[in-house]
């Protein structure tokens, strides 16, 4: 298959290659993600019960308390953080969280182009996302 290249904006530098996990809903890290096991715990969330560890976490934007930034730091200390974060629109809570947890982050990406299970390569120095292998559908 062809590689799909998406260009966004660099927020936090870094590179990685991992499987995508994609949500169409905003995420509140405080109360929405369990820092002890890396699972989404927000009820009625489309990723509820899913683990974000080691994935490229794609969601439109963050919401909720600014304490959420610290949850991202905790996740990374517990080796449960996502390998990268891709947003449609970056917001302060997630940006600060990604900086202090040192998680590569890009925004201004059309998330409809990425599906859960796709293998993607993130170059957050240049703000480029490459979708390498599409999930069989």
């Amino acid at each position: 298959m062809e590689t799909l290249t998406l260009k966004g904006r660099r927020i936090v530098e870094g590179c990685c290659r991992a499987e995508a996990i994609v949500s169409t809903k905003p995420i509140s890290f405080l109360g929405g993600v369990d820092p002890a096991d890396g699972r989404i715990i927000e009820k009625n969330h489309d990723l509820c019960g899913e683990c974000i560890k080691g994935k490229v976490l794609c969601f439109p934007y963050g919401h909720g308390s600014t304490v959420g930034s610290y949850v991202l730091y905790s996740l990374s200390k517990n080796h449960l953080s996502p390998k990268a974060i891709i947003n449609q629109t970056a917001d302060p809570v997630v940006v600060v969280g990604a900086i202090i947890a040192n998680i590569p982050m890009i925004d201004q990406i059309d998330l409809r182009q990425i599906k859960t299970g796709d293998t993607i390569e993130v170059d957050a120095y240049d703000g480029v996302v490459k979708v390498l292998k599409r999930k069989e559908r």
Partner: protein
Amino acid sequence: MYLTNEEERIYDGEYGWTNQICMKILVRLGELFAATKLIPINSAHVSGISYKTLGDAPIEFLEALSATGGKVSARATLNPQGLDTEYLGKKLDEKIRRKQLNILKQFEKMGFAQSLTCTPYYIEEPSQGSHLAWAESSAVVYANSVLEAWTNREGGPSALAAAIIGKTPDYGIHKAVNRQPKASVTLEAQPQNEIEFGAIGAFLGKVLEDKIPVICGLKGSSKEDLKQLGAALASTGMANMFYLHSASMRLDKPEKITIENNDIKSSVENLSTSAKSEPELVFIGCPHCSMNEIKNVACTIGGRKVKGGKELWICTSRFVKEKARNYVGEIEQSGAHLITDTCAVVTWTEKLGIRTIMTNSAKTAYYAPTLNKAETVLAPLKECLNTALEG
């Protein structure tokens, strides 16, 4: 974003990890909001101090910051924590006390003043036109609207970063162009008491979103009433300031909003979730009481005693309590607790068996159902005290 040589060097890590990570936070947030530079601040005020709201997530981060020698480079104050040592600290369990103490210790190491109040402006009033980096939304609105200082609504982490660096990115309402009012508010009748001021704030927060209003007809209101209005405005919406109308004000095609008596009435009603007249706790002091409010509480108590089975809390800062020492005896003799460093919203009222909270604060009435899992009754001071006291 333009950085000075020194800022560049901090960003590159020459001044250690703590300064670097804080600089990164400020620069990246600045880029996000199209700031072109950092500006010096007169003070920072950090929220997210109570272990109840923070949980364990930030402890490691705060420890890392303080362990690598992070120090504040501007006057920096702290929001209330989850307990006081004299009263609530003795009722809550050891683990909670230990965790809270550890959080506070990290801030102390970094040079934060142990103000532990949501009203840092009573300790030191920021001067007109000074730039601040304050979290705690009620203080943000008060600073911008009543004191005419300039601050965005910071989050806990960004206010912390600003305290360490002593600067904040120049965007939002640090710029005069963004402080222009966009809505003009007319009241059908004057608010009668503090809960109606709060109700007006709560109503406006919902309809304004982030638009700055000019409110007509409230010139001459007490600062305490405006504090209630601002705290509620920030709770229900994203507006970070309001103006009181004066003759010299020129508005360019503002959105016109009329608040009818019924709007205030239903706003008050919506803020009460219970009609129960027997709350376990009557809570005054959200935001923390001023000297005047303490005096008013002491006078209204007027020698009466708190009813058996009821709690009456009056919350303020250590600083105001010391200043109001002539009234402390009178309040405490009634059986009420004059509590500093914390408040009902950020402490563990559930663990103390409190199911219903009566308060004169629209902000508390708005947050307590979720943050305290409590029913709320919103009533003016006199009615609150009459419920708590004998006779």
